């Protein structure tokens, strides 16, 4: 066997690791730059973002799809965040460590790994058909929430766990109640972690089609939703149908739609990063 000098083998391994990093990053950067390059003209004409689609979606804009996606994201956050954080607090701070609790924790971890199409079918069965909500924003939001809850609970629990147990003891030993300890010591120190995790996971669902396909999505609506019982257009699905179902559509329109979806996801990731930096700076331990 050839024996390499330590200097040389150090150099080679450095090079290999660097190559691996490049390989991991390049495809992502390529996708983003191609989308921007091909979509920017239509995107920055703004009309595309603010108009309703017309002429069988060959003309006009994607306004209702943007609104639909944002609506679903926002309502889902408001619905699932309090429930998820509440469940995480219960499981982490109050629940006795018995068989039942362990089974609940295990199933939450497993639920987070269920494919999203399964949630879509679940939503169709329960919310759309059984509860007769129809294909609607509310059915979509409920489905997304059910899908997001395990993720939110898991991230929130790990954020709660990262607050040192000693802080809880110090507070309790001063005669402060458990709930006040959670409210004033645990939560303030866990919130940044919770928010970051939750925003990142919601950013992921912004691009989901499967759970919404049967529960909320319209192929095409000529108007904006009037209530939560209306169907909506959403960006990822709109992207899919324009790219596959409508011949003769300008490729730049498709890329501009992808650009918009990308912007929403990137903005949310950016917010998560800002929150994290802000709280890091103010953290006292």
């Amino acid at each position: 066997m050839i024996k390499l000098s330590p200097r040389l083998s150090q150099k080679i391994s450095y090079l290999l690791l660097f190559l691996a990093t490049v390989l991991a990053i390049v495809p992502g950067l390529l996708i983003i730059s191609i989308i921007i390059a091909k979509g920017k003209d239509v995107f920055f004409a703004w009309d595309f973002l603010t108009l309703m689609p017309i002429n069988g979606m060959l003309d006009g804009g994607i306004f209702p799809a943007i609104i639909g996606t944002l609506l679903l994201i926002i309502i889902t956050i408001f619905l699932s965040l309090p429930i998820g954080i509440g469940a995480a607090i219960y499981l982490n701070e109050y629940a006795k460590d018995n068989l039942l609790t362990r089974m609940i924790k295990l199933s939450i971890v497993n639920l987070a790994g269920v494919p999203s199409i399964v949630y879509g079918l679940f939503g169709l069965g329960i919310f759309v058909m059984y509860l007769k909500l129809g294909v609607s924003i509310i059915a979509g939001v409920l489905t997304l929430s059910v899908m997001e809850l395990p993720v939110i609970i898991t991230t929130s629990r790990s954020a709660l766990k990262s607050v040192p147990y000693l802080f809880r003891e110090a507070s309790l030993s001063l005669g402060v109640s458990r709930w006040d300890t959670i409210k004033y010591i645990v939560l303030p120190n866990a919130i940044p972690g919770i928010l970051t995790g939750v925003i990142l996971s919601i950013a992921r669902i912004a691009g989901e089609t499967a759970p919404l396909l049967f529960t909320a999505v319209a192929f095409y609506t000529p108007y904006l939703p009037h209530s939560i019982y209306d169907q909506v257009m959403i960006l990822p699905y709109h992207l899919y149908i324009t790219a596959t179902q409508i011949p003769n559509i300008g490729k730049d329109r498709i890329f501009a739609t992808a650009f918009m979806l990308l912007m929403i996801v990137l903005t949310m990731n950016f917010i998560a990063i800002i929150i994290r930096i802000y709280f890091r700076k103010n953290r006292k331990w």
Partner: protein
Amino acid sequence: MVNKIKVKNLSCYYNKQCVLNSLNINILQHEILSIIGPANSGKTTFLRTLNRMNDLNVNYSRKGEIYLDNNNIFFMNMESLRKRIGMLFEMPIPLPMSIYDNIVYAPKLLNIVSNKSDQDAMVEKVLKNVSLWNEVKDRLNSSAMKISGGQQQRLCIARILAINPEVILFDEPCSGLDPISTAKVEESMIRLKQKYTIVLVTNNVKQASRVSDKTAFFLMGKLIEINETGKLFISPQKKQTGDYITGRFG
């Protein structure tokens, strides 16, 4: 002298394993009781039983009774018990907030103080009580995590004084401190004796002889001997006690 705390036949277990065996101790009001003994003899467990910190531990169980002013503490509300029996841990644990907030945190929640001027007065008073005021008065609003270990430990004492307890438990409060910080903490303890009943667990036999009125010797979950500090150190009744204080084992 009045009995402040009476411990009757207390036995404690982790996972059904006995770590404190039928303990009987009376603690007088305004005395400092030292507890000495080698590691793992159950000293911390005893303190954490006194203010029921261990009740949160699912592996822990106990038998027997403890009375505070003739009331069984196991029937008392935990929050009000802990307000009456403060505890200082082995490591200083400042809360992740400013020096000022560390002190007013609990009193605010327990409605001991309300307006700002009362709070200011309280902060100054308790910090002076632990001789920390001069060292930190210019940076009350900076993080309590940034002061030295000795200062943190005295801040933690001040924090306990702010809730005005009747009994204070110290669990090896100087084990991580240098001699000068230790002297300052001991000084505060002796001053506190006039108002509070103190139980001091210490791994430092000399510290016990310096500050306490009475000393108890624990060994492997049993109370071997308890006596006035002077007597225990000069003429211990049990051989194990003598061996321990002269440093022959443990």
